[in-house]
């Protein structure tokens, strides 16, 4: 299975978006940074014990699923929406959802529009090769209004067109909209409309049928969530390890039981995963949270305990 391949290779191949600010993009040194990138690093840490043993493969939206299917990458972490047809027709599996999103619209404030339903006759910028264009078509059709699509190749093109006024509205996942808005010289002049026209559960994808590998991805992610739930951070991990008596925490950190080995990993696997970038909350805050220029609130992605949807199965 993929797990053995990764171990044999000593390197995790992670399909990523090379240009989505906050989620994945290489920095000046060519190192991928961001929310999605952090998940890959955590998986690498869990499987190989070293968060740097990951090779990011930049993928365009058009080639991403083929790359995964053909084994070019082990896991695809490229803000991909989990859908029925992708699960079944494209033979993918989405083990977890690491970001709950929804498609929204951004318009310039001086356009005088406050609801997406007022966009009749508007020009809308949209990136091709994603679920967004289907959602968009459905939304306008459903509301009996018309629009002109301006299709563009990638995210930065979309923003440029929007800023230059090639379109009245820019549609993509709400997280993307926020990220984009934050980078504008005048964020206050743009508003994100209240309508969220779709559900966009984003998560890592793996090949259908390789359940063991799917489990590795799922539980690495769950470990990050549980860590946040239990208040384990990168900084206090050593301390917790020494002092904690919570059996779930002890199992998580590999102090008790054989949880890692059960999955074909090391018992310290999840500890390493947390050590890589911290827990889910830490990653969120460091990459896209309110303290970053992108400034996304946790919203749906808060832990269930705080009214969000992020809910990890118990670690036992």
């Amino acid at each position, binding site marked *: 299975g993929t797990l053995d391949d990764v171990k044999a290779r000593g390197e995790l191949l992670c399909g990523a978006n090379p240009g989505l600010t906050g989620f994945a993009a290489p920095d000046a040194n060519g190192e991928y940074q961001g929310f999605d990138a952090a998940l890959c690093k955590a998986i690498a840490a869990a499987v190989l014990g070293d968060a740097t043993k990951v090779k990011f493969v930049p993928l365009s939206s058009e080639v991403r699923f083929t790359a995964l299917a*053909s084994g070019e990458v082990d896991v695809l972490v490229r803000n991909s929406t989990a859908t029925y047809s992708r699960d079944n027709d494209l033979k993918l599996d989405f083990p977890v959802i690491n970001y709950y999103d929804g498609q929204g619209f951004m318009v310039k404030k001086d356009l005088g529009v406050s609801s997406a339903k007022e966009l009749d*006759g508007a020009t809308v910028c949209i990136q*091709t090769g994603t679920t967004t264009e289907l959602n968009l078509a459905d939304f306008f059709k459903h509301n009996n209004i018309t629009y002109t*699509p301006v*299709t563009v*190749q990638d995210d930065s093109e979309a923003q*440029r067109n929007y800023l230059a006024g090639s379109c009245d509205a820019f549609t993509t996942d709400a997280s993307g909209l926020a990220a984009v808005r934050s980078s504008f010289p005048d964020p206050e002049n743009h508003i994100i409309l209240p309508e969220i026209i779709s559900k966009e559960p984003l998560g890592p994808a793996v090949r259908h049928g390789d359940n063991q590998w799917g489990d590795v991805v799922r539980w690495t992610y769950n470990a990050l969530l549980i860590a946040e739930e239990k208040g384990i951070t990168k900084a206090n991990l050593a301390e917790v390890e020494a002092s904690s008596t919570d059996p779930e925490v002890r199992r998580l950190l590999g102090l008790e039981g054989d949880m890692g080995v059960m999955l074909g990993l090391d018992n310290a696997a999840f500890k390493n995963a947390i050590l890589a970038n911290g827990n889910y909350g830490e990653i969120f805050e460091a990459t896209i949270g309110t303290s970053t220029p992108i400034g996304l609130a946790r919203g749906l992605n808060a832990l269930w305990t705080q009214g969000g949807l992020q809910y990890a199965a118990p670690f036992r």
Partner: protein
Amino acid sequence: MTLATDAPKDVFRLSMLIYDTRYRSYTIQIAVLVLLLLFLGWITDNTIQNLAERGKDISFNFLWQRAGYDIDQQLIPYTNDSTHGRATVIGILNTLVVAIIGCLLATVIGVVAGVLRLSKNWLVARIMTVYVEVFRNIPVVLWIIVASVFLTETQPQPRDFKVTDEMIMAGEEPKASMLFGAIAITGRSTDIPAPVLSRPLPTLEIATVPVSLSFLAFLAVVVVSVMANRRFLTRVTAVQEETGVRPVTWWKSLLILFGPSIALLIAMGLHLEYPELKGFNFKGGISINHAFSALLVALSLYTGAFIAENVRAGIMAISRGQSEAAFALGLRPGRAMKLVILPQALRVIIPPLISQYLNLTKNTSLGIAVGYLDLRGTLGGITMNQTGREMECMVLMMGIYLVISLIVSSIMNAYNNAVKLRER
């Protein structure tokens, strides 16, 4: 004299398969054929295995399924309820429309630039040289992007055209206004007046494609007038051959060419529908989106630079002696150009010209850089993405491009054979 003995019997030996010129080529060809078949078999086998492993099959059924996405430039009706197959046809038409208009524009640009490059005017020749060199030596993708950026970044927004009551009160002018009150170039599209008929003929639906009878009628009239003009010109030539003097023809020609069609259009009540600012955008008229314009402009300028070189080379290939001989016979420069230089230069220019057309047609696939939904954008882009049928889409797409190219190049070969200079 020694006589040759009888020819030895021609017995077949195995070694003759290699040494005998008669058999050797068969041996080689059969070996190649076997290798080829093995190779194809290997590939087929791999493909079948791979498809099985990924749980896929080969099927073109998706072409009849609902596409679900919108395309902003449609030459025939299309909505997101149409099929992928129809989206593909839209893509092909979008490819062809850029290719055809691009070829025409590039030819005009190329001929003008090529001729000006040879002009005695130093400044103009230099400017053209700079144009040709700059465009030829920078990737066409960059030009497409630059054209798109130029159009979107430097042109005004639709709402800059808006005239509000307050502005009238304050006596202010809107930030932008339409060219000749008819054409609006905005940062998102170019809107031009649309010809509309107030008394059109009915429209027929043939194989889900609406065919306008008015258009057919117009086409028929144009064809007839062109043919009539031909007849007229042959008659004029006959007169010239009789008397030696060519009658003045231009106004009669114009009348024959355009008179009937104009009459028909007036009869059908042709008028222009002007674009008007309504809501967010201009409505009415024909809206040409910028992806199209950018692709068209960039490809025409880029290919035009190459054509300019071909034209220059073609004219220079006609030796100076030819024009001197024509002058010495008393022909004026214009006549010499028409009767002596051009017919010869065209023979040199047209073959490379057609391969430039081919290049331009293939380069339309770079519309991907500005999101133009041509064949690659529909069939090889969104459709492929939404259906996950890479194999089928790619094969179909390459096949279509191939057919287009083969048609163009067979025209080229036919032309080449037709105009070959006769030598001893």
